[in-house]
């Protein structure tokens, strides 16, 4: 798969790579790739979409209220700031 160099690359579970389209939140981006992520509220307060962030950084569009560990992100309310690597639970 050819990946556009300008767009951030998202790696999931060490085996799937795709280019981030610059607009979706991470949950929608993952769903568009048919990657199964748990979700409930899609607004950052239930914590169902907790995902491990192995590499890279994210920006939150909505303040996350659910508990996450230091190496975890709530994909329903954040966007990548550059290349990132995720591991779904």
């Amino acid at each position, binding site marked *: 798969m050819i990946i556009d160099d300008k767009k951030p690359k998202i790696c999931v579970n060490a085996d799937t790579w795709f280019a981030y389209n610059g607009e979706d939140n991470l949950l929608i981006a993952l769903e568009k790739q048919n990657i*199964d992520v*748990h*979700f*409930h*509220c*899609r*607004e950052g*307060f*239930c*914590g*169902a979409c*907790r995902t491990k962030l192995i590499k890279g950084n994210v920006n939150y569009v909505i*303040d996350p*209220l*659910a*508990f996450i*560990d230091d190496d975890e992100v709530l994909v329903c309310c954040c966007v990548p700031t550059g290349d990132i690597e995720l591991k779904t*639970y």
Partner: protein
Amino acid sequence: MKYTTFNQQPVDTMKESMFFGMPVNVARYDQQRHPIFEKLIEKQISFFWRPEEVDVSKDRVDFLKLTEAEKHIFTSNLKYQTLLDSIQGRSPNIAFLPIISIPELETWVETWSFFETIHSRSYTHILRNLFSDPSEVFDDIVLNTEIQKRATDISKYYDDLIFHTQLYQTHGIGTHLVDGKTYNVNIRLLKEKLFLCMNSVNALEAVRFYVSFACTFAFAERELMEGNSKIIRLIARDENIHLSSTQHILNLWAKGKDDPEMAEIAKEKEGEAKEIFLLAVEQEKQWANYLFRDGSMLGLNEEILCQYVEYIANQRMSAIGLGKPFEVSSNPLPWMNNYLVSDNVQVAPQETEISSYLVGQIDSEVDSEDFQEFEL
């Protein structure tokens, strides 16, 4: 230590732990030891709703069409939910407020309990509409053995913590004789009781509601009892925030970000915390069995419901570091998510209820062509 409603000693709440520090005096939120609770309060308040906003009148017609087995499922679930919210409407206040030592958590607990009382009021709203005399349903909550079993396990941790806190706040640390029984009271023991209680509350908010939720939404999937489903969606959304708060408390303790003694206790009592959770899961499964004793309902059976409980339990237990004890990895009831998405929950009439409200709506799209007939 005696409880006081206004502690006259100056207290630096930035240095206090969540529980068992100095009693709170000034309800101030300009400085916060744990700002997450203030954020939860804001979110919860933004979700404010009133049961009366939801029209449940069509449900009565639907209810009469249900089979006897389905009626049993529907009313039993309402009874169980009424029990859960009866407990939750008062217990966090009574158990936690006397021992909380930071204002943001104190106000969170009050906000949390208040919303549970909205839930309780909504059950009356639903039942009044379905039965000309809902007393029979309410009275059975205290008599029904299946519900009693659950009530015992939910309230015992609260009751134990409340009783020991009362002893501590009236008689202090030491050994006390009450009604011929000796009780040992010390801070460590109180903290252990608090830890177990918080785990029991967390399990309640995490899994105990979900069998009932699934049944309600399964009816809604068949376009039955939709008013009720709309209310339960609002309740589910609130419960998700409540769960988030108990997960925060447990994790703040476990990760040593609050009271170091609580971190020790969290490690020491992890096994018991796990047992509390697993018992709640087991009781939910038994509840599914009781619900379907007269026959199952379309789109749902005991087996798939039990799998769903395990699926939810895996998520909720791993969120507080208790691992994933069950095999299930994918969601056995994917349509449940449609009802749990926060965005889909709307109550205002212009948004959903009355379609005529939308019919006469003003067309807000203005094109340059619309001005063709204008002359200046």
